[in-house]
């Protein structure tokens, strides 16, 4: 095959990359500008180094109408980690039970879990809210995280991985006297480590990016996540300090983007090989 410079393909890809980088760059540069200049519409693509001081300032003080950004970042971190780890743990356990044991109502349990796929929060806004208030979970951190921990996707993914483990391996482990716990710890978890990494990325991003759920169950500003906070900031438009809003947007973006970029390889494999 002849290797020549495929300039149309490069051009299209560069345009695609620019489509994503440019808005972010604009916000990054804008965050360092003088707020009065932004309000007059004098946005520039060249950052002003002196303006970087806006970052420590929003971290500790926030912007008008919102909590300090560091606090919202902590809530988001807590929420994303609790959801990612919680989902992985309960999904591994239930997939293990369903795949490697026989117990009464096993298939019923499987179908009950499966049904959750069809009930996203968005279709049951009001009743979920009333259940949450019956359980006294409104405006609590567990309320923010625990209900999102149940999900069928992770369970189905682990079940698939477990089903693909050869029977010989299971036999051998049992001959060596491995009980159910040791089998789980020494064989199943190492075998599914690639899945674990991919799921962690997907679920961390899922948890970090939640908007409707925290909006419903956490009206107390002390539980504002960074995503809720940034939307609140643009809502108070009359006195918006745009440079602070832009700095907050950058800080809201960075953590999940960093997780995806750093764990890119596992993430892409896990996403396309599992169901979604």
């Amino acid at each position: 095959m002849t290797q020549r410079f495929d300039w149309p393909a490069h051009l299209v890809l560069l345009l695609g990359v620019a489509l994503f980088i440019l808005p972010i760059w604009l916000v990054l540069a804008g965050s360092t500008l003088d707020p009065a200049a932004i309000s007059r519409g004098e946005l520039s693509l060249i950052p002003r180094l002196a303006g970087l001081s806006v970052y420590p300032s929003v971290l500790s003080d926030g912007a008008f109408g919102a909590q300090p950004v560091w606090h919202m970042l902590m809530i988001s971190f807590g929420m994303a980690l609790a959801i990612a780890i919680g989902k992985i743990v309960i999904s591994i356990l239930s997939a293990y039970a369903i795949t490697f044991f026989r117990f009464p109502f096993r298939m019923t349990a499987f179908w009950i879990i499966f049904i959750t796929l069809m009930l996203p929060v968005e279709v049951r806004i009001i009743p979920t809210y009333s259940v949450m208030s019956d359980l006294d979970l409104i405006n609590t951190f567990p309320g923010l995280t625990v209900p999102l921990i149940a999900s069928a996707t992770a369970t189905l993914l682990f079940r698939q991985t477990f089903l693909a483990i050869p029977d010989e391996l299971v036999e051998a482990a049992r001959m060596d006297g491995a009980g159910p716990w040791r089998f789980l710890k020494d064989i199943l978890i190492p075998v599914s480590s690639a899945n674990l990494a991919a799921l962690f990325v997907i679920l961390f991003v899922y948890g970090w990016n939640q908007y409707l759920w925290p909006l419903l169950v956490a009206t107390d500003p002390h539980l504002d996540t960074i995503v809720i906070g940034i939307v609140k900031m643009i809502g108070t438009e009359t006195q918006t300090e745009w440079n602070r809003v832009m700095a907050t947007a950058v800080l809201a973006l960075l953590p999940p983007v960093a997780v995806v970029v750093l764990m890119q390889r596992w993430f892409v494999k896990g996403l396309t090989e599992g169901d979604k």
Partner: protein
Amino acid sequence: MERRTIFPGWRLPVLLVLPQLLLTVFFFLWPAGQAIWSSMTRTDAFGLHTEFVGLENFSDLFSDPLYIDTIGRTLVFCASVAALSMGVALVLAVCADRELRGRNWYRILLIWPYAIAPAVAAVLWLLLLHPQIGLVGRWLNRMGVAWDYKLNGVQAMLMVIVASAWKQVSYNFIFFLAGLQSIPRSVVEAARMDGAKGWFRFRTVVLPLLVPTVFFLLVVNLVYAAFDTFGTIQALTQGGPGKATETLVVKVYRDGIVNLDIGSSSAQSVVLMAGVIVLTALQFRFLGRRSSE
């Protein structure tokens, strides 16, 4: 498929499956049941009296021209978001699948936007398209387009479509690229030998092999556009101006949480549930086909 080798006993597995079952029952089945129940009741204006009205909320809903409008609007919105984000992603994936220098860099640079929250994507586009401070918004106004999405419903709709589609391109790109890479090189080479050129080769050889991926992504994108864009729309327009960008989910939220019309909001929830069930069933059909190939 079932495993042949298993562990004995039933107490341990019941204990293992219990946490997930409890969460599912409390936070999924119970609320869903309540939604169905309250979709068949009506509460008076003072919240004192609740009576069972059967399917009346549903017949009210479907005879309400505003609700029918919202269904139509949601369909237009979903179809536009799916078409735009899948189209752009496919073009990018076809280019990134070639033997290019630096293609791993292109991939990383096109994959990371997966991590952007829908609501944050909305903020980025607001900062671009704001009529007073946004770079693009100001430019449009200078060019003589009276750009103000807060007043003009069509412009508001365009804006939420673009912001929602933009965020979804990476996801589609990842799947299209994986789909293209799973097509054996030998097939494409054979077509090349037979003299099939560029577009013709793509249309007759590559595209048919990509059909399962296209269907899978179509369902995923429709679900995304229908449900996950609540944050985008809420941040940009709150469904306005008027009802110009009010999708079905935004309407459930407005009617239930803002206007406290529980009966109608629950009936709308039940309609949406039916929608998700159909889409999920479709997805599993195509997914099943995908994995068996």
